[in-house]
């Protein structure tokens, strides 16, 4: 690894470390509605929203009521996104004249954005109108992230409170996280991104005259837009010489900001954060990477504050950071090492002052190897799923890192809210395992962990592996599934495993060669996304309710401290062991075989 690569990773980690505490303090205050300046400024708007919606902010909810409100709100979201896509052809702000989206694709996208997955079976710039991007997709970028924050705050309240029946008010949590956290941060980030060159306009697609012409052939169409046939009955090709380039435009910066801050990851354009209009410079890339981890890292600190022991938050943060650094190192090494197949073809992949070298297929020059590998690790450690490099073209081990990080449940900082709530379940399991070893009733943060909590935790641990492994198995047995594969051999299997891992864990990144915009994949992945999201949230809220009702017990001599190195090691061990035991056989069939083939020179 070069000095510069180490430096870039170190700067990123240092910036994250520095921002964790202020962000945590901010989140804590925002969720309690007592921010100093913004509270005064936006307070009237918050109260107006409650009045209009008939919300009594003082009225708290039990976990069942909270869950029902959440599910209802998200169901309305699915319906709205679905309908806006179906009707976009006759709605305004559609200069490129995009037509209605097919039923299965519209349904997939609606579930995808509501579940914070942002899996995209479509290509943004050739499918979605500006209105759909803003009013359907970007809105869910906010609301799905706010939902994640609401759930984790409710779970933390479960630990922090005792002997009560309520875990908060869902409407208040949604409103505050949107109004005080996501909106102001998004405005700030959008402005910084525009300064770097991210576009923000409502212009029609811009046609420019290029320096050189390009000649290409495409299927000839008749006046009705149907392909014409040549003398042999095959589709006729016509040769076209073009002297222009059409630049896709749109309100990108506003969407880009919340796409990263909300760990959503759904690109305005097909190429996502690799597109120069979404991510024009190394600094915009740095900001986008930082935005992914910002709220998840801050939530760790807010967690410590809320349970009254900041060390608890830092312990979780440290476990996450150690996993992150390890996976980043593997990814950087694998990608910088390059592709031996190309080396034998007279290609120079060595790193020097004049080029980054390494595996540059599917990467952008301005990002090179270091920030591409770093981005790929961050986006899958979190449930973001934005990409600045094409994951399908990563080296086998470079692709294994994002795949496995998703399969771990995205607990390495993870999605906004979802990362921490899943990690806290791993913490519960870790203390349970430790309790078994020494023969004591496990307890975490003064709460006894009993049968109900363990049952719910088991459900949480099982939901995604079942979706991923059973889903992959079904897909590879069906011709509709195999039809989507783009690359031959073990890599093709990885494309399917990756798609299911991404959907069930609500990531949204893809081995994008897979042709997934078909009724089969659209429906299968929509089910995986919905169950993978709400199949976790419901038991989490059930645990929150159960914990809140418990008495607090004072730590005794036999209590395992959950803020020291021993617990951090135990937590990492639990995450890695569960992840490894569940997925190693499937990984062996995909990236591991491919790596061995590559090394052996096949």
């Amino acid at each position: 690894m070069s000095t510069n690569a180490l430096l870039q990773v170190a700067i990123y980690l240092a910036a994250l470390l520095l921002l964790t505490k202020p962000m945590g303090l901010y989140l804590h205050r925002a969720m309690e509605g007592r921010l100093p300046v913004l509270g005064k400024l936006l307070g009237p708007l918050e109260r107006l929203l409650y009045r209009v919606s008939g919300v009594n902010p003082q009225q708290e909810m039990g976990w069942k009521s909270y869950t029902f409100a959440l599910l209802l709100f998200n169901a309305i979201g699915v319906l709205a996104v679905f309908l806006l896509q179906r009707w976009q052809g006759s709605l305004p702000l559609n200069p490129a004249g995009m037509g209605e989206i097919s039923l299965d694709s519209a349904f997939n996208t609606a579930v995808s954005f509501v579940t914070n997955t942002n899996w995209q079976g479509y290509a943004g710039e050739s499918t979605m109108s500006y209105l759909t991007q803003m009013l359907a997709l970007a809105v869910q970028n906010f609301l799905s992230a706010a939902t994640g924050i609401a759930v984790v705050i409710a779970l933390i309240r479960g630990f922090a409170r005792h002997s009560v029946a309520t875990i908060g008010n869902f409407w208040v949590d949604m409103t505050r996280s949107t109004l005080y956290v996501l909106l102001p941060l998004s405005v700030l980030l959008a402005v910084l991104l525009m300064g770097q060159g991210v576009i923000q306009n409502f212009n029609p697609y811009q046609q420019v005259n290029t320096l050189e012409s390009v000649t290409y052939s495409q299927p000839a169409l008749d006046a009705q837009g149907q392909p014409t046939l040549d003398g042999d009955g095959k589709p006729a090709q016509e040769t076209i010489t073009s002297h222009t380039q059409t630049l896709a435009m749109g309100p990108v910066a506003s969407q880009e900001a919340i796409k990263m801050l909300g760990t959503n990851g759904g690109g305005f354009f097909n190429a996502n954060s690799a597109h120069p209009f979404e991510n024009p410079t190394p600094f915009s890339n740095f900001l986008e990477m930082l935005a992914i981890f910002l709220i998840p890292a801050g939530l760790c600190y807010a967690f410590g504050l809320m349970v009254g022991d900041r060390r608890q938050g830092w312990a979780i943060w440290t476990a996450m950071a150690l996993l992150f650094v390890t996976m980043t190192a593997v990814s950087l090494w694998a990608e910088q090492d390059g592709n031996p197949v190309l080396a034998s073809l007279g290609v120079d992949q060595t790193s020097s002052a004049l080029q980054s070298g390494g595996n540059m297929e599917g990467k952008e020059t301005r990002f090179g190897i270091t920030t591409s590998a770093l981005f790929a690790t961050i986006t899958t450690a979190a449930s973001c799923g934005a990409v600045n490099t094409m994951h399908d073209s990563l080296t086998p081990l470079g692709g294994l890192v994002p795949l496995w990080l998703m399969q771990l449940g995205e607990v390495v900082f993870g999605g906004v809210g979802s990362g921490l709530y899943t990690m806290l379940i791993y913490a519960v399991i870790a203390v349970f395992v430790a309790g078994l070893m020494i023969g004591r009733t496990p307890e975490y943060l003064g709460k006894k962990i009993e049968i109900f909590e363990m049952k719910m935790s088991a459900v949480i641990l099982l939901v995604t592996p079942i979706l991923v492994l059973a889903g992959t198995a079904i897909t590879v047995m069906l011709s509709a599934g195999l039809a989507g594969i783009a690359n031959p051999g073990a890599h093709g299997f990885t494309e399917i495993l990756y798609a299911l891992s991404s959907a069930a864990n609500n990531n949204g990144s893809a081995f994008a060669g897979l042709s997934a915009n078909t009724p089969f994949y659209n429906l299968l992945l929509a089910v995986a996304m919905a169950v993978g999201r709400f199949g976790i949230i419901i038991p989490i809220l059930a645990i929150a309710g159960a914990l809140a009702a418990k008495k607090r017990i004072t730590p005794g001599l036999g209590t395992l401290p959950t803020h020291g190195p021993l617990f951090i090691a135990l937590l990492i061990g639990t995450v890695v062991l569960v992840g490894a035991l569940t997925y190693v056989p499937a990984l062996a069939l995909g990236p591991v075989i491919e790596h061995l083939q590559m090394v052996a020179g096949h």
Partner: protein
Amino acid sequence: MKQHLRPALFLFVSLSLLTGLVYPLLVSAIGQTAFAKQAGGSLLTRDGEIVGSRLIGQHFSSPGYFWSRPSATAPYPNNAAASSGSNLGPLNPALSDAVKQRVAALQTGAASPSAVPVDVVTNSASGLDPDISPAGAYFQVARIAHARHLTADQLNALVTAHIEGRQFGVLGEPRVNVLELNLALDALQPQQRGQ
């Protein structure tokens, strides 16, 4: 549970309007005021005519221009209305076949048949990469010098002047913007359009 219906509907609509209309319009207003050029796409003009965006790569294939990185967009390379990578896996024979052809094309007219920098023979992620590595630019100097009847020294100096270093000296990678480099090349010695 019926008491949730009104908050759900009203809060959904009002938060949608706030985040889906007010917010992007506010950002647009700031953009038009503070960053009009960037928000509009960083367009480049020559003799009053828009010739592209400095952020969006164009396709070049004549020997007298610096070539951009290969682009996998359809139906033609560098289609800025349909960004895309190749999504070829590292062991896909289609990748090695394509790279083989590109290596041969770039070595034609090169000073020596040395190894070709990896970025100029591999597809970018977006299909619209505006940059190539400095190594990729220097590699093409001999071919362009021959086609334009310029000296290699002149062209090397031109490339060196167009190298953009790491941002703040540390972030990202050094690179050369191909469209700007080719515009400077035309300014140095005009070449007939479309040649």
